[in-house]
């Protein structure tokens, strides 16, 4: 049970670091960068549960993010429902859609699963783009209200940032908890050997579907927070390139590592901001960094950090920490 204490401690430390960040980086610009980092991290942690732990790829997670964002946008703006309700509905719809398409899709595997989820993402994108009357089409959906919770208007960036950080930490803690449970073991089991997992009584179809729905719900949570932060959304933010970017964040951060996903998301979200000064060569440097990281950190940023830590401590510590942290 030592791992549990470590999880709590790390998550607590992470939350305090996030809360202190606005004092260290006082400008609103940094807040916005951090909010974007947190939102992407939520989605990436969920995607890693699916990809890194359960071994099921999805190239359509941007669609869940987008569906949730549009759902809450339409409910709160067009229909005038309370924001909190819209947010819940957004997450719920993302999960529901994941449930419905997950049943036939998760029977596929490998590249075929990648294609099916990718195709799903493209289809959702096209519908967001073309149902102009509902979504506002390619030029976007404007005028989404900010969050009002319990009479408290979270209109300032800072309070919204705290909300986002708290949700991220909740997502992280839930994910860590999940991995350290019989569910987490079942997921990792079906990743390595579906046959063996079935042979000990694990209903692999059910667990695949469960984790697909959960990761879609995390993406949905990020999506609704995104919509009510920017108060503007456009389909171009939810295209297939974003799905690919999320996948890159998972792998670059480190497969089957929750903290790796957080690192990967923060790193790749903030990186372009650091590269801004390079103007036209920015994209080349970005590509090169991606290639080099993958070549020299095969286990991702998390793997790199942990092997560095091991080297510093001078001894390797095998056991469950390597897998579940």
């Amino acid at each position, binding site marked *: 049970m030592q791992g549990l204490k470590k999880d709590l401690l790390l998550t607590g430390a992470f939350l305090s670091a996030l809360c202190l960040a606005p004092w260290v980086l006082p*400008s*609103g*610009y940094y*807040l*916005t*960068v951090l909010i*974007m980092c947190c939102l992407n991290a939520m989605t990436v942690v969920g995607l890693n549960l699916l990809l890194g732990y359960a071994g099921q790829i999805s190239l359509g997670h941007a669609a869940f993010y987008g569906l949730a964002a549009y759902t809450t946008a339409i409910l709160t703006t067009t229909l005038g429902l309370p924001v909190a309700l819209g947010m819940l509905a957004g997450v719920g719809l993302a999960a529901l859609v994941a449930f419905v398409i997950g049943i036939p899709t998760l029977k596929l595997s490998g590249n075929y699963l990648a294609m099916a989820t990718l195709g799903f993402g493209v289809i959702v994108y096209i519908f967001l*783009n*073309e149902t*102009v009357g509902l979504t506002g*089409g*390619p*030029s*976007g959906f*404007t005028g989404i209200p900010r969050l009002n919770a319990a009479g408290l208007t979270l209109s300032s960036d800072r309070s919204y940032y705290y909300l986002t950080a708290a949700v991220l930490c909740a997502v992280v803690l839930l994910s860590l908890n999940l991995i350290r449970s019989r569910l987490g073991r079942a997921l990792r089991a079906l990743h390595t050997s579906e046959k063996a997992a079935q042979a000990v009584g694990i209903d692999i179809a059910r667990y695949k579907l469960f984790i697909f729905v959960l990761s879609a719900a995390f993406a949905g949570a990020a999506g609704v927070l995104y919509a009510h932060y*920017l*108060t*503007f*959304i*456009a389909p*171009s*933010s939810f295209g297939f390139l974003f799905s690919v970017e999320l996948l890159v964040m998972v792998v670059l951060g480190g497969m089957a590592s929750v903290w790796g996903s957080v690192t990967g998301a923060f790193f790749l979200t903030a990186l*372009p*901001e*650091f590269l*801004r*000064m390079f*103007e*036209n060569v*920015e*994209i080349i440097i970005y590509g090169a960094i991606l290639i080099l990281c993958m070549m020299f950190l095969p286990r991702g*940023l998390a793997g*790199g*950090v942990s092997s560095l830590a091991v080297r510093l401590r001078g001894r390797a510590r095998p056991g469950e920490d390597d897998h579940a942290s």
Partner: protein
Amino acid sequence: MKLKGLVLALAMAFLVSACSTEPESVKIGAVLSATGPASFLGEPEKNTMQMLQEEINAKGGVLGKKLEIVIYDDETDVNKCVLAAKKLLDKDGVVAVAGPSVSGNTLAIIKFFEEAKIPLVSCAASEKIVTPVNAWVFNTPQLDRHAVTRIMLDAKAKGLNNIAIITVSNGFGQSGRAVLQELLPPNGFNLVADEVYGPKDTDMTAQLTKIKAAGADAIICWGTNPGPAVVARNRVQLGIDTPLYMSHGVASKKFIELAGPAAEGIMLPAGRLIVADQIPDDNPQKPLLLSYAKAYTEKYNAPVSTFGGHGWDSIKLIVEAINMGKSAKPADIRDNLEKIKGFVGTGGVFNYSPENHNGLDENAFVMVVIKDGDWKIMD
């Protein structure tokens, strides 16, 4: 290693931002789509602004201070645009911002300008940007409504009543499509076909075959390069001789190059910039357009486009507002922008008012036709 690098990069970023704070200058920001799908807008805008900065500073700057234009690239991405705008507002402390290049990005950041009380002069055309009027937001391009009005006048004169439209499924095409759907029927036209193509599509034969079967008198295509060039080529290949109107979105030499011989006879409403040498000498815009085109072509060795002109107009209007009020305070700039009347820009003559934050009308456009591989003003 990694951590050290990150810390270093952070430190560098701080240093760079610290160095750029110079009190003795007037700082204007710009968010432009210099790369990404809308780079055909953002790149000439960016070039133009850099050129203007040199030009204005060579003439003594603004209010006796140096003019500094901080330009960020949003890669035609909403999130990057928001971050860039936040950086301009919160870190760089600019007094006004020009751009973004595309409507979606503009709509995404309007809120932040309202909160920060900094004026934004957008280079994007959508009507949503200026209707309803937002106190802090202006734009400079001619509206789609004005372009459609010019096309309708021409079609009416030629007796073309059955119209087919083919629009690109991005923000530009969508807003054009909406205006076409709104304006064509009440003005006595029949909309016989309403087709769409994707921004990256390379073949529009299927759509044009449908349009051919629909029996249209004229086709209106709303898009930006390279799609309309494909439409033009496919139309000739299919042997369709129905007159083809394009939007002002293709008013750059690139279109004629891409469409090749298929461009002949295509008509479109365009700002006067691309036909500056053909407009009458008494037109107030003529000297400006000629000199801008000359300077741009010399400096960048590239043909001038009307899009760069939006950048020119945005910056010049902000500077004009600063000079009018002799103040570079954001609120004063805003107030004075609304007072600008008869300002000669590349896109037309601007008349801003508290009710009108676009300032142009359909006279900003002329109808041109492509003849012998070049633009020609229609009578």
